[in-house]
């Protein structure tokens, strides 16, 4: 892990929802900054308290430098930047960058279809994440970018998202719409003379003529942007495959999360994307078989009783015994799951185990604690 954080230029955390991807991305970012790198954590809608602890009160689309001076951590040489993704803003910025002039820009932003796309495609944060990724990685402003990907039901969505926009402005569809050189007026009439006029008329019936008219106008305006989208699409794919990029699969030790992890292992391998590690977060660790509370704690407990109801010590110790039994069982069950996961790894892939911490991870100190566990795998009992 240390080498990855020290050397890579882009680390992409993928995995199921609720396994702590956002916290881990922030953890990795913080450790990289401690190592002296300038790093940006690109995150999507994290819990507000994590955002606040990173100094992000505004939910904007801005890259914000996190002030680490007041944290009391050792002198941090690098810089930690963070940014929260806003789908709508990212898309508007993209259009502004790609559109040639003010007029084109305005026509696109005001188009009905554009607003429809904003609702459906932009709602897809996977797509927006890759768009922003392209900007920040190609800007060269950072030594390392850590991308926290959105949780996905269909894990493929993220990997395939660069193609999504390209799909809507599909060349074949556009060509079909714009077969003849079009004038703005009477566009549909011109089109209806084309070979597929019957089909066109049908779609007109289904969607309404106005809609097709909107689409046609949209395509006319969008045609010039098409190349730009295609270029970005291939550029992002290239970034995904770059040797300085690594995917980190994040999961938790339970079946649904591991299922997603295994799925990513397979898919990333099929796509030749570098996946050096699987991080199993939120592990419960109990190494001892039924330790007797009487033996280890009775004396201490009795000494601390003072003002408390009598028998409190014995009832608490009894509860502890039961609680430990459950924790131990859980720890064993998780070990079995991890062993199974290990059999799916290739020799060069490592498995990192991070214990579950009390409370939620939402300040720099908690992040640093997770960071220590990540870097120093011996501390948590098992080797990485």
């Amino acid at each position: 892990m240390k080498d990855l954080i020290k050397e890579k230029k882009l680390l992409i955390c993928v995995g199921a929802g609720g396994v702590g991807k956002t916290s881990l991305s922030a953890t990795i970012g913080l450790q990289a900054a401690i190592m002296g790198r300038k790093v940006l954590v690109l995150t999507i809608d994290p819990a507000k308290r994590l955002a606040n602890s990173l100094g992000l009160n505004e939910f904007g689309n801005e890259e914000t430098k996190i002030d680490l001076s007041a944290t009391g951590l050792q002198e941090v040489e690098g810089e930690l930047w963070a940014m929260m993704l806003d789908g709508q803003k990212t898309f508007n910025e993209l259009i502004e960058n790609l559109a040639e002039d003010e007029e084109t820009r305005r026509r696109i932003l005001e188009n009905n279809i554009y607003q429809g796309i904003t609702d459906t495609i932009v709602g897809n944060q996977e797509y927006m994440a890759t768009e922003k990724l392209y900007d920040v990685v190609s800007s060269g402003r950072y030594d390392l970018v850590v991308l926290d990907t959105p949780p996905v039901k269909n894990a493929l969505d993220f990997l395939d998202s660069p193609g999504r926009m390209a799909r809507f402005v599909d060349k074949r569809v556009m060509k079909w719409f714009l077969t003849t050189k079009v004038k703005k007026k009477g566009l549909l009439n011109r089109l209806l003379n084309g070979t597929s006029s019957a089909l066109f008329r049908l779609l007109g019936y289904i969607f309404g003529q106005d809609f097709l008219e909107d689409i046609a106008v949209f395509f006319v305006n969008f045609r010039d942007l098409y190349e730009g989208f295609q270029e970005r699409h291939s550029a992002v794919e290239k970034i995904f495959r770059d040797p300085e990029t690594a995917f980190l699969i994040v999961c938790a030790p339970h079946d649904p999360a591991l299922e997603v992890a295994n799925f990513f292992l397979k898919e990333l391998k099929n796509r030749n994307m570098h996946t050096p590690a699987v991080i199993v977060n939120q592990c419960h660790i109990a190494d001892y078989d039924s330790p007797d509370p009487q033996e280890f704690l009775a004396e201490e407990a009795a000494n601390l009783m003072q003002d408390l109801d009598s028998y409190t010590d014995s009832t608490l110790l009894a509860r502890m015994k039961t609680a430990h039994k459950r924790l131990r069982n859980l720890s064993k069950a998780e070990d079995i799951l991890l062993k199974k996961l290990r059999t799916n790894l290739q020799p060069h892939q490592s498995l990192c185990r991070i214990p579950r911490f009390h409370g939620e991870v939402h300040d720099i100190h908690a992040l640093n604690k997770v960071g220590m566990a990540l870097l120093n795998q011996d501390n948590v009992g098992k080797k990485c």
Partner: protein
Amino acid sequence: MTIETIFQSRLLFVSGKGGVGKTSFASSLALASSDKGKKVLLVEIDNIHPSTTNIFGIKPEYNPTPISKNLSIANITWKEALKSWLTETIKSRTIVQMILGQPIAMIFLDATPGAREIVILAKLVSLLEEWDQIIVDLPASGHALGILRVPKTAQNLMKKGPINEVSKKILKIFSQDTTRVVLVSLPEEMVINETIEFANKLHQQVPEVSKPIVVLNRMSIPTLSKDENTLLDRLKEKEIAPPEANELIEAATWERDLEQASQRAAERLQATQRGKLISFQRLGILGGYDGGPQKVIQQMKAALLRMAVR
């Protein structure tokens, strides 16, 4: 009462953050409801790996598959839904075949914002004629909101024609009292934040739908007394040396964390609800339950039936 509202709903959408137990809740409710004599259809939407497969041992298809006398499961895939909708709308097999046979038309229909969702929702609405209750196991929050928002978007985009009409019809069903949204949540801060945010967004963006009903899953009931709590804190402060002692203290702290988190969760979520908050007790500690999905479903189903009796 809230539980009655759920049982009496005709179209019930179930969503929530990933991994909270959406499918478990939807399936156990389907079982409970069909036990009460309702003809129930449990539906997934265009899911490549249908989650209900693990529970019922059968992979749901587009056409409903019976699981028991009153319960069937299905996976509404968009291509089949499109075909069915086109056939109903155009009423000419030849023309429908022509559209479906044109790659360009399919790309267009696939890529047009909202077209997929509209035909799927239209299918759900038409299925309501045959079933007493349809329970929809939606994808996680973000995607689910996207789906529910589509009829409104489509109405704005397509001012005339069959899509406009079917969107109107779907919105009318949405606004009925028997259409409900259930959000499954967990006693974890991030999950609760997302639950509350989803509820607010849904209310803003699809005001036709009634306020969502929240269900708190994997909840722990407080067991530690005040004095036991104090003693545990004192022991923690002591920093006792043997690792076994630490593990024991750690174990008790975990249970206490869960109990406290559950209390906080219940309070925050209750504030968003009109009726009493529906909750399910945790099976085993810390989510570690090896009963398998079928057993979880049976337990949840029993809990639902008990709630309904009360």
